[in-house]
């Protein structure tokens, strides 16, 4: 796995999304650019997805993740660059011949066809016999537990069942690469969790390469073995979910991954001591934060996740910040506090049974080993 953040390479971003074992490249985009008239959606992007991996393309709306997926599918023309699947250049190959299958956000189930006909549609247009169509539809329906619904129409199915039919339609083609375009975003929260588990199970069973577009970081974190974070058409970082969470390459990734989001506080760097930097926090306290070798900056932003701030007594000598509790959210397993401090409002995640009251003055201890410093360009120091 390698990732070059755009901060130091300009418009070029190179990334490899590999499975845990780092298998052979399966889908590869080389210097891909996509323009719509004067608007550039994807800029000179390189991406390698390894065979058998579950790769999530994650980013906010308009970051180009769906465009990227559609270019791999062949639904969107590539303005410049090449797309390879299994080392074959498929840049000009029609979608049907790329050995891919795609699950759409809207499911795109044909309303006038039964579940069986929907699943077997690709076989039917390919002129396969009715017998084969039936056998394969049944086989897929068994895997997805859709057998009782084979003769129903999509309108007679629940959201989750429709989603499974959409997956079934992809499965029946026995593709090499599965492409998912925000497939769970139309489901309610509970069903989404259930379908997430089913998708993970399916990936484990099939071992097929899956590329999954989502703006939901929880989906990406729970499903993918590698996440590609996109920002304005360039790759911000590629890595495993924990790598992205614990070692974000830049402020954008740090802010995007994690819920509640990371706190950012302006900090002056007093001294650089090799792999640590002494920073002066608003309020005058100092902290020692780890940085990469050779990092150099005067001004920085300190990033700390809510769970790495601990509520202490305001007079505690270890308290980095002090402030008044503005809002308390009880989530059961955790308590989220919004604390107004001289450094701005900070979000703190405490134990579920944390006892605090709005207006109460608290001190916040910073876990220095977990905090990160971001330079003026946004890159992690």
């Amino acid at each position, binding site marked *: 796995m390698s990732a070059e953040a755009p901060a130091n390479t300009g418009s070029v971003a190179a990334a490899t999304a590999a499975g845990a074992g780092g298998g052979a490249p399966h889908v590869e985009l080389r210097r891909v650019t996509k323009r719509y008239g004067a608007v550039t959606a994807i800029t000179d992007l390189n991406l390698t997805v390894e065979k058998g991996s579950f790769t999530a393309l994650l980013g906010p709306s308009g970051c180009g993740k769906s465009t990227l997926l559609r270019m791999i*599918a*062949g*639904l969107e023309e590539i303005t410049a660059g090449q797309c390879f699947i299994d080392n074959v250049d498929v840049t000009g190959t*029609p*979608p*049907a011949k790329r050995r*891919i*299958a*795609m699950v*759409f*956000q*809207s499911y*795109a189930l*044909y*309303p*006038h066809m039964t579940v069986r006909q929907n699943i077997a*549609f*690709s076989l039917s*247009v*390919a002129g396969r016999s009715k017998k084969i169509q039936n056998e394969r539809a049944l086989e897929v329906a068994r895997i997805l537990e859709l057998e009782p619904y084979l003769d129903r129409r999509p309108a007679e199915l629940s959201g989750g069942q429709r989603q499974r039919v959409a997956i079934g*339609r992809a499965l029946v*083609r026995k593709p090499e690469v599965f492409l998912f375009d925000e497939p769970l975003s139309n489901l309610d929260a509970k069903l989404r969790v259930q379908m997430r588990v089913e998708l993970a199970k399916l990936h484990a069973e099939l071992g097929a390469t899956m590329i999954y577009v989502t703006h939901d970081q929880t989906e990406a974190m729970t499903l993918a073995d590698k996440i590609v974070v996109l920002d304005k058409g360039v790759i911000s970082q590629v890595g495993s979910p924990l790598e992205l969470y614990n070692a974000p390459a830049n402020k954008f990734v740090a802010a995007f991954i994690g819920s509640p989001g990371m706190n950012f506080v302006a900090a002056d760097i007093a001294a650089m001591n090799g792999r640590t930097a002494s920073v002066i926090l608003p309020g005058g306290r100092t902290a020692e934060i780890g940085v990469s070798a050779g990092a150099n900056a005067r001004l920085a932003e300190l990033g700390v996740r809510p769970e790495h701030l601990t509520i202490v007594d305001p007079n505690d000598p270890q308290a980095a910040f002090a402030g008044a509790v503005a809002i308390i959210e009880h989530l059961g397993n955790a308590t989220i506090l919004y604390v107004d401090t001289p450094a701005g409002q900070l979000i703190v995640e405490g134990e579920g049974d944390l006892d605090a009251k709005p207006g109460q003055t608290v001190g916040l201890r910073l876990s220095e080993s977990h905090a990160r410093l971001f330079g003026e360009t946004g890159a992690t120091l």
Partner: protein
Amino acid sequence: MTASAGLASDLTAAPAARRVRRLRRFDLAGLLITLVTLVAAVIFAFPLYWGLVTTFKPEYEIVRPGVELWPERFTIENYVHVLTQTKIGLWYVNSLITSGAVTVIVIIMAAGAGYAISQLSFPGRRLFWWMILASFMVPIPALIVTHFIVLSQLGLINTLAGVVGPQLIAPVTVIIYKQFFDSVPKDFREAAVIDGANDFQLLFRIYLPMNWGVTTALAIITFIGAWNLFLWPFLAISSEDKMNITVGITQVHDAFGVQYGRDLAVAMLAALPVALVYLIFQRRVTQAIMLSAGIKG
């Protein structure tokens, strides 16, 4: 005891409440609209009634001055004459063939053209679209001389194919299809494209079945239009054997000239299939009229 007391008060209150409800339900505007509609319906239906009643009158009664709303002597002689002495059976078959052909060809061509303009990108697509839009600004009767010349040069005058030909110009149908196909979410198309469907499969297996309602509506209205058409078949056909039913009516006369009862009897028989189609598919016909009215403005 309280329960029975409550019941008693309910009973006394009930008629008053019912009166209030009835008053509330009394809708003056609704009543007026209903009355106006009824009067309009009578005005529209009267000629039809008059025609139907006339077919059951003997000719002398028909030409007699005065208005008689019911036959003095009821007769089916007009129908017997029309059914036994004219080629009405053949005219029916001709009408059925030409209207059926027009309907099938128009639907296939319009759906194909609508699909191409809506879904495909090819050079001149916009030009085609504007041509189709412009073409329905030209009234068909204005083109009738041109049609006659072209078809006569093709040797199609006095043939059923000649009757069908000019009726295949159906820009409104193309426009309606184009608009319906435009509104099909593009995910359906893309899913089918990934599944390997070609454009014919996309049209006939996805787009047309997904717009089955509009297809039936358009088919019915096209059929009714073709069945009722008079001017072009009247000009294109000269031999009695190739006439359709609307033109056939003009042939029902004898040495004594026009016999109104017989003419109206053919007219009634000619209108019968359309009336039946209308009664059976009333909702679809209304839908189709609304669709084309929306286009024509």
